């Protein structure tokens, strides 16, 4: 999911396109009329398929409702008999007394409930094959907060346990009432974004069912498997899904039924609108050819080439840096104007983007969103970490890779905004996010236990990014990239934990990094090192009245003192420049509160700077990392001029009244 803070950002120009592609625009109502490629790589079973969903759904646009039947085959690979099965009913979150909405209101007392945001998923019949109708055995549970009004998790107890290794087949009839788009799902005019819309079984993980309630700041967690989904809807609808189109049938009642198949994924979502324009393209990488569909909303067509280019660039760089993209499709849905709530979301092989009709080229917001959401195909889609409990592993690592890719594509200092008058890079943008309240929560906190929504975003997205950027200083950028590659290849199509990630980084780097991760990931220590003092004094200061024959004959004692202002302990490099051009690099382990370096030279100190290569992004104050003996007032004068002019101009506008 996109970080809210990214909505503030501005940006720049383009970059080289990856190789060979063709692009076409179509308004054909079947936007995904392609068949799966027959390449061997894509016919392998990639995941341990725990679930097999077969869903037939019918959309009623007049009521914004879906009626559906679901057959779920659950393979009991838990290693023990299972009698109780929990299911997510995410759509019940958008009700006033739900835990989700309670948390929304807690974090924003100005939030007012809108009836059109109401949504619900109602199970009308629940059967288990061979066990009969179990509808009456369903009960809502509230494992996180005991909120009895929350109906986002349902549990059913079977009459007989499912033996280890056996399958159980559930037959579920359900009805969805979709909300006006909220929290990445719902309708807006003729647009539908249908996500988290069917009863989804929990995950047996760490010896227990993991099926959390839907919270304001939580996302999702599910097992891999297959999805066969039939969607019936009006014939004029253009549909984008996270699956391959298998067949299309036009029905006599003016509807059509589209059948989709998807495998080795853990979710299935879809979007539809008669107003979409389908822009198609292809990309070929190490795992074969990927068909790209970009479903553009009216008014936004100017952004379509930017989406396509960014998607292909992202595919290329992820393929090179992290690992192969094994699916044969990628769908990007561009929500219509006013549909911000549907934008910037990830589902397996389908993402939603975000733009506006007026989006200037210098504002790289559309690119940023596509890179971020595509990155989730790796960090969430394939490396399927628990988003409820360790959000930093998907949103955080993904924000880091987003940063690296945006920097590579659009320049380190211009990867978010690139205008003649101002620039913004992703590194700075993520650090800006982190600086909000950097010590309120550790990265490892369960998502719904963060202090509030803002802290969740700042820490999960921003802090994780700067933690990993700073980690580059310790192990090197290339080593960290190699570690991410290893982590991906090792844990794709599984549910790894933070420990797995840290262990992989330590293994690849060959370094014990617990001293760092304990502070940066598990801790809330603040990070601030500064130059406390830098000055030179004549060595024979008592002879100040005597003048040496040449300035070079004068000997000076130079003092440079570095200080650790906060609790985060980190080794730092210090670069001292002297006025004869000499440079001295020092290293301090950073453990004590301060460290003084002393030099006797026939030159005076010119400047002292901590982290001269600017790699420690965790440092919350860059301005005190250096000290220039001779003041450089240009920045102050520049800001003064800008603000003075702004003040004068404001006065002119006000005086219109006079």
């Amino acid at each position: 999911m996109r970080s809210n803070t990214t909505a503030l950002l501005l940006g720049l120009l383009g970059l080289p396109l990856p190789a060979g592609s063709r692009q076409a625009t179509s308004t054909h109502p079947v936007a995904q009329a392609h068949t799966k490629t027959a390449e061997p790589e894509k016919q392998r079973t990639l995941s341990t398929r725990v679930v097999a969903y077969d869903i037939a759904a019918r959309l009623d646009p007049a009521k914004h409702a879906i009626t559906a039947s679901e057959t779920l085959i659950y393979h009991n690979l838990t290693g023990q008999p299972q009698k109780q099965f929990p299911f997510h009913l995410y759509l019940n979150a958008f009700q006033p007394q739900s835990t989700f909405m309670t948390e929304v209101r807690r974090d924003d007392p100005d939030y007012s409930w809108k009836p059109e945001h109401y949504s619900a998923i109602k199970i009308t019949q629940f059967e288990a094959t061979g066990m009969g109708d179990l509808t009456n055995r369903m009960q809502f549970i509230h494992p996180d907060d005991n909120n009895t009004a929350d109906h986002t998790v349902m549990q059913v107890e079977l009459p007989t346990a499912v033996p280890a290794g056996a399958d159980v087949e559930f037959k579920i009839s359900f009805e969805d009432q979709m909300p006006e788009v909220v929290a990445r799902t719902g309708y807006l005019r003729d647009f539908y974004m249908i996500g988290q819309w069917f009863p989804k079984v929990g995950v047996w993980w760490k010896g227990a069912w993991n099926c959390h309630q839907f919270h304001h700041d939580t996302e999702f967690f599910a097992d891999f498997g297959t999805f066969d989904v039939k969607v019936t809807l009006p014939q004029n609808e253009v549909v984008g899904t996270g699956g391959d189109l298998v067949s299309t049938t036009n029905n006599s009642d003016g509807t059509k039924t589209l059948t989709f198949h998807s495998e080795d994924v853990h979710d299935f979502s879809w979007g539809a609108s008669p107003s979409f324009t389908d822009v198609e393209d292809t990309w070929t990488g190490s795992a074969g050819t990927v068909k790209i569909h970009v479903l553009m909303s009216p008014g936004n067509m100017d952004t379509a080439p930017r989406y396509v280019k960014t998607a292909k660039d992202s595919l290329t760089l992820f393929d090179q840096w992290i690992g192969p993209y094994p699916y044969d499709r990628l769908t990007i849905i561009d929500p219509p104007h006013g549909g911000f709530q549907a934008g910037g979301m990830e589902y397996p092989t389908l993402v939603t983007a975000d733009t506006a009709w007026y989006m200037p080229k210098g504002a790289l917001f559309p690119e940023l969103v596509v890179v971020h959401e595509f990155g989730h195909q790796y960090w969430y889609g394939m490396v399927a970490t628990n988003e409820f409990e360790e959000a930093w592993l998907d949103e955080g690592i993904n924000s880091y890779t987003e940063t690296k890719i945006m920097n590579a594509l659009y320049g380190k200092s211009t990867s978010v905004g690139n205008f003649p008058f101002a620039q913004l890079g992703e590194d700075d943008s993520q650090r800006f996010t982190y600086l909000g309240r950097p010590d309120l929560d550790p990265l490892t906190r369960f998502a719904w236990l963060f202090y509030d929504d803002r802290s969740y975003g700042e820490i999960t997205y921003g802090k994780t990014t700067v933690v990993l950027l700073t980690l580059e200083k310790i192990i090197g950028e290339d080593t960290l990239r190699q570690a991410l590659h290893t982590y991906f290849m090792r844990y794709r199509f599984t549910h790894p934990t933070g420990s797995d990630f840290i262990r992989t980084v330590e293994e690849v780097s060959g370094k014990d990094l617990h001293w760092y991760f304990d502070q940066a990931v598990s801790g809330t220590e603040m990070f601030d090192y500064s130059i406390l003092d830098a000055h030179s004094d004549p060595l024979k200061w008592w002879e100040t009245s005597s003048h040496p024959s040449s300035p070079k004959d004068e000997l000076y004692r130079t003092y440079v003192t570095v200080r650790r202002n906060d609790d985060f302990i980190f080794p730092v490099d210090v670069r001292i420049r002297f006025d004869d051009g000499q440079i001295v690099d020092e290293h301090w382990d950073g453990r004590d509160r301060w460290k003084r370096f002393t030099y006797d030279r026939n030159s005076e100190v010119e400047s002292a700077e901590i982290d001269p290569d600017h790699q420690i992004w965790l440092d919350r104050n860059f301005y005190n990392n250096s000290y220039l003996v001779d003041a450089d007032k240009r920045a102050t004068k520049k800001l003064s001029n800008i603000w003075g002019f702004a003040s004068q101009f404001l006065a002119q506008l006000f005086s219109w009244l006079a």
Partner: protein
Amino acid sequence: MADAGPKTFMPGAALVWARQRVLWLLYAISFVLAYVATRGTNARVGAILDHSSAARQLTHGFNVGAFSSLAMSPEAPLGGLASASVSGAVLFTIFMIFATGGILMTYYSGERLRAGAFFEWSGHHFWRFVRLTIYLLLVLIPVLILGSILGRVYTRIDKQSISPMPAVHVFEATVVLILFLLICIRIWFDMAQVIAVAEDEHRMHRCFRRAAALLWHNFGSLFWLYFRVSLIAWVVFALGVHIWTDHLRSESIAAPFVLSQFLIIFWIACRLWQRASECIWFREHQRTVATNVPVYDAPPLAASESAVPSTS
């Protein structure tokens, strides 16, 4: 739109040029207020930036991240900056209300007023123009209501329309309409001020009504008089900002300062150009329509440099 009324374009500019002291006075006030508004912040910002190499991100280009980091630094150096600027703007506005009497007398009389006379005329009309400003604020209320209604129309269309463009067109039309109304209102009150000064009228409601009639019967002439100067001001302003952002070296200090101050001076000059044009227009209008006063004589108390206003 044709300029069917008296020729005011070049004479107005010439009058502003000839009475430059007014322009420099307003610019000096503007500059001093801006200086005061930014001085405290400059000291705090300087304490952070002047000895830091990180400040180079603001010198070479303008790194929004570095600026944001500065704004969020524990010393909060930018705190209070906006309120200081707004306070300065309010003070400048009050000064403009005060000085308008002197400005208009300078342009209407065509004479060079001594400083003492200028400020006495300013003081003479100050409370009158305060009352007129209150009238102006009252007149703006319906415009605000209209803007609010059109805003709701925009929101409704934006919410219902499949394409964003219909709402965009409504927005554009709304902006044009509101700007048009604001220009008309400004001309209306400008002329009311001119009447008040030219005829030393202390009953503002009379000026208010007479100016409305004047605008109604001479709309094309007065609108064109005002609008073309506004257009020049905005075009030059946009050009100047473009040069500043796109063509000046980002680390340059002197050139942006000179350019920015030129823009402010030009902006003030354009406003004075409008006022001078309005005074000339009204003088010529009086000359034309007042058959019993075939040749306009300067108002009794403004005819010479020593003239001072009577008490009212």
